[in-house]
């Protein structure tokens, strides 16, 4: 393999692929990047067996071929090379990187040991505007669990929403649940509802973050694939039954509260300094948030709000409350309550696209 390419493009290719290399590899080969050169393209791939990234760049290929080398080493040298043309040549044992005046050799690993990286084939099932896909991930992913004992909750459900012919992204750790309806172009009819590791979705959001490109999505060989420009992220699915969340939606028959999101964020942040759990009091025209840590200190703050319905007091884990309030996408935030022991709802004002359901804390 002999390829040359501009250092800038080559570096960006390698850094993108490196996102797929786990910092804690289970097999040495997984610390490597698979580099392929053929028909005018240089392709870099990586995988941690849960997710793989395959990305490509135009290059002048003098001799096609493939190799696997340490991702970290290749990434480090690419980052430090001066601007200009870089040539990459694989020999029998070493990949040689040449830049103006410099020559760097990286020991090759066995390309045949590298896991098969899925290649996108055919058309996408549906396409989502990049910005709205990213914000859907940001709005929901924090509700996901990191507890490996309940694998289903470490993923986000992506299910088709036939009513709106869009998809809904849902995440929960059993203490709170977030969902977001996303508009798509194309048909969702063929989409199979599935649970995708939230870690992977966060990576997709990060990779899509730099560009305005649409995110194309499809299901292939029981794996979910996301294509953003020249990058393809493939993810394994999480087996299992996602909890039936629809029954949880609080009706908010008892009390509804509307107030400015930024104001509430500030009050919650201050309250958190004094305790993990917030006593959240709803009164005729204001809220009162109190927290305390015995023998350490306490806080009390009132904030004006439009309240309809009964007055009540409910307890929340401060962190979960803040996550929900921050995820709201409108200037005003709407909260609905049924009972201090039952889930409460936080949502965008006058919109049904985003909902955050939070289970209260029973305060003592």
């Amino acid at each position, binding site marked *: 393999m002999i390829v040359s390419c501009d250092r800038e493009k080559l570096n960006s290719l390698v850094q993108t692929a490196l996102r797929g290399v786990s910092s804690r590899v289970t097999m040495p080969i997984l610390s490597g990047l698979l580099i392929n050169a053929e028909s005018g393209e240089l392709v870099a791939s990586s995988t941690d067996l849960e997710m793989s990234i395959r990305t490509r760049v135009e290059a002048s290929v003098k001799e096609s071929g493939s190799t696997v080398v340490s991702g970290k080493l290749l990434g480090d040298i690419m980052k430090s090379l001066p601007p200009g043309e870089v040539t990459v040549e694989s020999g029998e044992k070493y990949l040689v990187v040449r830049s103006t005046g410099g020559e760097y050799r990286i020991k090759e690993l066995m390309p045949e040991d590298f896991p098969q990286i899925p290649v996108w084939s055919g058309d996408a099932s549906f396409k989502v505007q990049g910005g709205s896909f990213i914000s859907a991930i940001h709005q929901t992913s924090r509700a996901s669990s990191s507890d490996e004992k309940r694998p289903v909750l470490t993923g986000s459900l992506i299910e088709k929403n036939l009513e709106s012919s869009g998809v809904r992204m849902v995440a929960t750790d059993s203490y709170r649940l977030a969902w977001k309806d996303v508009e798509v172009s194309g048909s969702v009819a063929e989409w199979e509802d599935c649970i995708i590791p939230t870690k992977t979705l966060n990576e997709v959001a990060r990779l899509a973050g730099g560009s305005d490109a649409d995110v194309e999505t499809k299901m292939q060989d029981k794996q979910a694939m996301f294509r953003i420009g020249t990058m393809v992220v493939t993810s394994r699915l999480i087996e299992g039954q996602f909890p039936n969340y629809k029954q949880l939606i609080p009706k908010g028959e008892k009390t509804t509260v509307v107030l400015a999101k930024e104001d509430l964020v500030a009050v919650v942040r201050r309250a958190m300094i004094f305790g993990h759990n917030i006593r959240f009091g709803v009164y005729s025209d204001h809220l009162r948030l109190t927290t305390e840590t015995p023998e350490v200190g306490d806080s009390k703050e009132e904030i004006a709000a439009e309240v309809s319905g009964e007055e009540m007091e409910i307890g929340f884990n401060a962190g979960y409350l803040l996550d929900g309030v921050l995820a709201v996408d409108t200037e005003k935030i709407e909260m609905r309550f049924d009972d201090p022991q039952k889930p409460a709802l936080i949502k965008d004002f006058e919109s049904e696209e985003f909902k955050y359901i939070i289970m209260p804390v029973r305060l*003592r």
Partner: protein
Amino acid sequence: MNATKPRAILHIDMDTFFCSVERLLDPALEGRPVIVGGDPSQRGVVAACSYEARAFGVHSAMPLARAGRLCPQAVYLRGDFQAYLYYSRRVRDILCEYTPTIEPAGIDEAYLDLTGCRLAFGEPAVVVREIRARIAAELGLPASAGLSTSKVVSKVGSKVAKPNGFVEVPPGGEAGFLAPLPVEKLPGVGPVCSTTLTDLGIRTVGDLALLPPEALESVLGSWGRVLSEHARGEDRRRLEPGRAPKSVSRETTFDNDTIDYELVRCTLLLLAEKCCRALRADGLATTRIAVKLRHSDFRTYMKFRTLKVPTDQEQTVFAAAGELFEGLLERGVRIRLVGVALSGLVGAGCQGELFEGPAAGRSLKLDSLNESIDRIRERFGFSSILRGSTSELLPDRRSSLRDTIPGRLHEAASEGSAAGGGGAAVRVPQPATRSGRPPRGC
């Protein structure tokens, strides 16, 4: 603090507290050597001993077997921590009437700042006499007291005053009072430090005060400088009243090193229960769980886990502790000690769960279950209600557990360091069978 009047710091120290309480509960012990800690045939250490036992050379933290050889005629008791706690709280109730500035220094001692109470109660020395008289009259317990301008001098004062006495060191007289005393009387001077000082020809606190602080620092490090100040009666430390506990810990040494890992697991559950009960009593929850394991060769390991949702439920703590234990376990190696420590303490609350299913509402149900058990135990004692898997562990039911050691001997036994250890061994309480038991709290 009063700017014109010098500080008036009282150190009050209950005399042979555990033994005094035992005598209160069983007057037949009066005048006899009493040793609290357990049976001399067991592996424990002396938690407390009466003056009669001390006459035979017995002292606290001494192995029980040794105490048994020195003083075989003593009455050996397992100890009843709940009873000690009950009386400790009654003492605290009396102290609280005189000043809000109280720094508890253990289950049986405390510092009080009496500087501000002259107007309300009169001169500090008068107040001290009144406090001691009330403790004696209302509770029937002897207490020694030291009164001076600083913590260290008052602490030494109460030590010198024992048994059942009161020493007042007037402002300006601190150095003079300390000078003739042997250096071991200063808090923090243990056997090792004492030997180092003796090697330097220092025998009294006065010798120590004459040494330049730099010289002492070069021998003992930064502690040397502090010690030098203390030797001259200088100690500006303020009292730290109501210091919130940073951690709650309990640990247990097995009677015999064991490879019965099921026994260890059950013990972990018992320890988790005790820790969580202490948490709930203080309205706290933990976010960091640690398990400590000591093998028979004294290799000691700790493993931690951080929780996202704070808990005060032993069920959750035990689930994590069990897994941490699995991670520490070396199969085939005998275990000497196991401990549970909870830190990252925050205000309590019970986080509910969203989904229906077997686990639905479990957390809330457990919450009320634990609350009910706490109430029962508050009235009838810890062992009045036990889980099946831990019922065999308590000393009156099974002899293989030596003791349950609070992280430190302290009010509510909850303000221990995570490393735990403590010094003295205290028995877990037995069911209330003896007469003369206080009606509540034990």
